[in-house]
C-alpha cells in the first residue's frame, strides 16, 4: 500500500518535472530572442584582418581651420578649463616651416596609432593597449595615472586629466587621474554603420578633405590605393613604429 502510494507520488513528481522542464526551455528560448538578437558589427570580434588608419594631405589642410579639433572636442566632450598647459588635447593643429625651402604647411597631429607603440611597451599595468585592428587605446579602468606613456610617446599625443570631469559622453569614457588620447572614434567604427572619425568627417564637411580614413589592409579601399599611389610619410619614421597615421605633402 505504501509502495503504491510512493509510485503514484513519483509519477506525479515526474509529470511536474517534465512540465517544468518544458516551461523552462520555452522561457529560455524566449529570453534568447529577447536578449540576443542577431549579431551585429558591434559584437563581431575585432581581428587583425583590418588595420584602421588615415592619410593626411598637408596640402589640403587649411591653415587657420580648426574644424577637426572642434569636432573631436565635441565628439568626446573635451572642454578646456582655461589652463592650456593642463587641458587635454586629443588632436591639435600644427604649422611647420621647412628649414631648407621655407615652405609652410599645416596639419593635424594626434595619436599615430603605431604598430609598435612605445606607450604600450612602457605601460606597467597593460592599460595602454593596441587592438588587433590597429587602434591604440587606454583602458580607463586599469590606468593608474603614472604618465610613463606620456614620456614615451614620440608625438606628445597623450593628455592627463588634471581635474574632475562631469557630463562625459557615454561612448567616450574619461576620468580624472587617467591618461587619454585619440581613439580614432572607436565607438563609430564599432557601430559598423560606416561613420568615419569625427575629425575626418568635419574636414570633409568644410570641403578640405585632408583626412582620409580607411582600412590600410584592404587593397580595394581608397586609403590603401592612395597609400600605394602617393608618397606618404610617417612622422619619426626613423623610430620604425609603423604608424597608422600617414602624411603626404608635408
Amino acid at each position, binding site marked *: 500500500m505504501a509502495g503504491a502510494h510512493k509510485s503514484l507520488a513519483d509519477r506525479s513528481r515526474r509529470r511536474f518535472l517534465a512540465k517544468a522542464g518544458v516551461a523552462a526551455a520555452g522561457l529560455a528560448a524566449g529570453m534568447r530572442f529577447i536578449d540576443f538578437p542577431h549579431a551585429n558589427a558591434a559584437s563581431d570580434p575585432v581581428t587583425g584582418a583590418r588595420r584602421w588608419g588615415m592619410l593626411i594631405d598637408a596640402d589640403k589642410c587649411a*591653415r587657420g581651420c580648426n574644424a577637426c*579639433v572642434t569636432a573631436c572636442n565635441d565628439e568626446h566632450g573635451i572642454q578646456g*578649463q582655461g*589652463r*592650456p*598647459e*593642463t*587641458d*587635454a*588635447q586629443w588632436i*591639435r*593643429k*600644427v*604649422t*611647420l*616651416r*621647412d*628649414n*631648407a625651402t621655407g615652405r*609652410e604647411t*599645416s596639419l593635424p*597631429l594626434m595619436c599615430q596609432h603605431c604598430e609598435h607603440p*612605445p606607450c*604600450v*611597451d*612602457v*605601460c*606597467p*599595468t*597593460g592599460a595602454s593597449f593596441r587592438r588587433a585592428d590597429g587602434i591604440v587605446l587606454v583602458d580607463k579602468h*586599469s*590606468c*593608474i*595615472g*603614472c*604618465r*610613463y606613456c*606620456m*614620456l*614615451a*610617446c*614620440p*608625438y*606628445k599625443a*597623450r*593628455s*592627463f*586629466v*588634471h*581635474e*574632475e570631469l562631469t557630463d562625459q559622453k557615454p561612448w567616450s569614457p574619461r576620468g*580624472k*587621474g*587617467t*591618461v587619454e588620447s585619440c581613439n580614432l572614434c572607436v565607438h563609430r567604427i564599432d557601430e559598423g554603420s560606416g561613420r568615419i572619425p569625427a575629425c575626418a568627417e568635419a574636414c570633409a564637411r568644410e570641403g578640405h578633405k585632408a583626412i582620409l580614413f580607411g582600412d590600410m589592409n584592404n587593397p580595394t579601399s581608397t586609403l590603401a590605393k592612395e597609400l600605394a599611389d602617393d608618397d606618404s610619410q610617417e*612622422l*619619426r619614421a*626613423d*623610430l620604425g613604429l609603423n604608424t597608422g597615421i600617414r602624411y603626404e605633402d*608635408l
Partner: protein
Amino acid sequence: MAMTDNITGYTDFSVIEGRGAGFYTLLAALAAIIAAGLWAAHTMETEGHHVTGMTNQIVWGIPHVFAVFLIVTASGALNVASLSSVMGQKIYAPYARLSALLAIALLLGGLAIITLDLGRPDRLMVALTHFNMTSVFAWNVFFYSGFVALGALYLWTLMERRMNPLTKPVGALLLIWRLTLTTATGLIFGVLVAREAYDAAIMAPMFIAMSLSFGTAAYIVASLAALDCTGRPLDDAVVNGLRRMLAIFVTVVLYFVIVFHAVKLYGGGLQGFERFLLEEGGAITTLFWIGQIAAGSLLPLALLTWKRTAPSRVWLAAAAGLVLAGGLAQVYVIIIGGQAYPLRIFPGREVIESTFYDGVVAQYHPSLVEFLLAFGGVALSLLIVVLGMKVLQFLPRTRVAD
C-alpha cells in the same frame, strides 16, 4: 670614542635611548612633515593634478625627482653592507646593520612618494596584480618589493646569530639585486627612444655610479649623526674608507656625465639638447653647472682630498651633504630638463604655430603640494630609521674584543 684598527671581535649592539625631549621633538617634527605630505597627496587626488606645477608637457615633477633620488640613494646606501658581508672587509661589519636599515627606509620613502603621486593611487592594487612585462616600471615593482624583502632577510641574518652563516649568500644576492634594481631605474629613462635627453644605454651604469655616490654620502651623514653624535664608536679606518669611496664614486659619476654629454654633442643633429642643457636652459643650466657640477661634484672632491679638510669629520659631513644636494640637482636636471626640451617630431622643420607647445621649451613651476609630498617621503625615510634604531639593535655600542 674611536675604535682601534684590526677588529677581530664581534660588536655589542644596542638600541638608542630615545627618551629625551630632543628625541620626541624629532619624532614630532618628522610626523608633522609626513602629515603635511599626506595632506598634499590628498589634495592632489581630490582636486586633480592641476594643483601641482606638472602639466601635459612636464608630466613628471618634483615628486618624481625626490622619489628617483631616494630610490637610487637607497641602493647605494647598501655599500657598507656589501663591503662587510660580501667582500669580507671586516672593519665595516659593525656598521652593516645601519647600512641595510638606511637602504630599506630610503626606498620606502621613495616608493611612498611615487605611489601617492599617481593619478589613481587608489588603484595601487591594479599595479600589483596586472603586469605588462615589457614595461620597465612593471619590472621595478618586483625589484623594489624584492629589495625590501631581501634587505629585511639580510638584517635577520645579521641580528640572529643562528642565521649568521647565511649573511654572506644573502648579502651577495642583495648586491646583485640592487645593481639590477638601479640598472632598471636608469633604464626607466634609457629606453625612452622618443626623447633626445634619454634613449641611452649608458644611463644604466650612470645610475649605478650615482647610487654608489649618493648612497655613500647618505650613509656618511647617517652614521656621523647616529654614531658620532651619540658617543658611539665610529672607527677612523671606517671613516677614512668612506671618504675614499665617496671621492672615487663622485669621480666615476663625473666620468659618466662627461661621456653621456660628449656622445650627445657628437651625434649629428642632437646638439640642440646639449646647447639647451649646457648654455640656454636657464634654471636647468644653472642647476647643472652650479648645483650638479660645482657644488655637487668639484667642491666635495676638493673637501675630500685637500689635506687641510680631508682629516675632518665635519668637512666630511659637509662634503657628503654637498654630494646629496648635487645629486638631487642632477636628478632634477635629468627628469625635468629631459622633458622641458621639446620633442623633435618634425626633423628638418620648424614649428611656427601650435596650441600644444610643440617646438618650444616647456616651463615648469613646481607648486607647494609637490614639495610637501616630496618632503613627506624624505621624512618617512628618516622616521623609519629613527624608529628602527629605537626598537631594534642597529647601532654598535662598544667593541667586545676576543
